[in-house]
């Protein structure tokens, strides 16, 4: 299925399946396709997708039988699973994230606009015009790394990272955009905030977003922000 997949041994019970070494939507889509395929065909191996690679973690007890080394057994099973074309292709979900941009919700909007030589309204328009894809979750539970930011909005991280970024903050760091699910320290530029709760460990599906989802941002005003915030679980 893939032209050149490479395995790297990371640990006794972990292999990395590498597709490339860049942040690139095509590479990430290969990672997503392999993840979906392996989760269906090889559920005993845990898949952790990232931008251009896929972590495979396995139970050594399960793969210790036979003469082959456990890593070789897993590699053979993974190659076999990926070798056949996958008949099932799920269309990605589209998740709309309402965002109140600027003011105390996005305290860095003016600075981002100045850095991009745009006015704040244009920054909001460019940010809401784009189609994003969740490349991976990481950094903190439910934190989505989104691909698809308009290159005009690429701005450096802040020189002085904040100790406490409010939960729901929508931010830009370099060529990436993301959403802080909880109060966290962070150095990305904050342009807005969503009232949606991104991560709730007590829910059946703890993370609002999953790798592979498509994301759109929708600009909302302060009143709508508070209305929606009131409907979120405590």
């Amino acid at each position, binding site marked *: 299925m893939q032209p050149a997949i490479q395995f790297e041994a990371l*640990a006794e019970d972990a292999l990395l399946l590498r597709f490339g070494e860049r942040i690139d939507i095509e590479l990430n889509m290969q990672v997503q396709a392999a993840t979906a395929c392996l989760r269906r065909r090889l559920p005993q191996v845990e898949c952790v997708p990232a931008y251009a690679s896929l972590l495979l973690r396995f139970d050594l007890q399960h793969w210790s039988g036979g003469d082959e080394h456990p890593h070789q057994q897993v590699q053979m099973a993974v190659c076999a699973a990926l070798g056949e074309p996958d008949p099932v292709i799920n269309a990605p979900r589209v998740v709309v994230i309402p965002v109140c941009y600027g003011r105390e919700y996005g305290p860095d909007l003016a600075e981002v606009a100045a850095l991009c030589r745009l006015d704040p309204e244009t920054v909001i328009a460019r940010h809401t015009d784009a189609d994003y894809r969740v490349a991976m979750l*990481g950094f903190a539970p439910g934190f989505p790394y989104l691909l698809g930011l308009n290159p005009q909005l690429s701005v450096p991280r802040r020189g002085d990272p904040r100790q406490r970024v409010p939960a729901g903050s929508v931010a830009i760091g370099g060529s990436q955009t993301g959403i802080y699910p909880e109060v966290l320290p962070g150095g990305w530029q904050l342009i807005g905030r969503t009232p949606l709760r991104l991560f709730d460990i007590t829910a059946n599906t703890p993370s609002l977003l999953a790798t592979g989802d498509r994301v759109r941002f929708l600009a909302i005003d302060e009143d709508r922000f508070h209305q929606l915030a009131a409907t979120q679980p405590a």
Partner: protein
Amino acid sequence: MNVTVIKPGLLSSLQDGGRPGHAALGVGRAGAMDLPAWQLANALVGNTAGEATIECTLAGPSLRFEQSAVIALTGAPITAHVGEHSLPMWTTCQLPAGSVLHLGGMASGCRSYVAVRGGFDIPSLLGSRSSDLHARIGFAQGRALRAGDVLPIGSATPLPGSSTGHEVRPLHWGLDPQPWFDFARRPLALLRGSHWSQLDEASQQLLFGGSFTLSKDSNRTAGRLDGHTLKLQAPLELVSEAALPGTVQLPPSGQPIALLTEAPVTGGYPRIGQVAAVDLPHLAQRRPGDTVCFGETTLDEALTRLAARQLRLARLLGTIAQRLGQS
């Protein structure tokens, strides 16, 4: 039946085997830093379902038991008193109702475990009762224990042959801590990491030959290693990918960092080594200021040692269950 925290100690938290299998959500495994010590503490009180224990760090808590309880202490050697009785470690102990267990300092090592028969009856989140202090998941939003915390104990049958007396009574047998606690602080087995060959030659030698010191900014997330600054032949720009406990990363500062149980599930620094899984509990027992040396190992050797350790542990768990059934 409850346990009340009278004094919290330096950093005490509820820990079990953690939350494996949720890294794709950004949730790490976390859980007990010294997993065999956690398993053996549970076994000694007859807990068989991976119950949570209290993990103590450097200085232990004081705990009041409302009712009689069966407890065991494992991990780093820690002083333990109930009244004038000194409690042995690695031994099943019966405590009468109203006992106050005072845990003190550790002669060496960093983490001790207190298991209570019945476990702690708190909600399980994604299959675990452990506190992920970094991601703030678990009891009381994943914070360390505080004075005044009340921890409910799960129900359990009495220990076979136990008395409901007013005496503090340790059983007449215990475990040899020697295989489970690394008193000699031996070099830790390290696999070459994906980017080891991109270290300069001096740094490649220093990683396996040099002596590092665990820095005081170490915690359950990472152990920072002072003593030598390591260099790459040329700077590497990597995109974020999965990170694992035991990975030794090299940030641009040149100070190696060993990721530990609460490490974020992704990272973007070069990976210069991977601590062998069999030696991760020993790394978890190093305290700030302790020496850390690495010896090179191969994947085959690491797997063989891990399998041997797991077999020894499984046999010991069986023996403990059998002895408890007879006591």
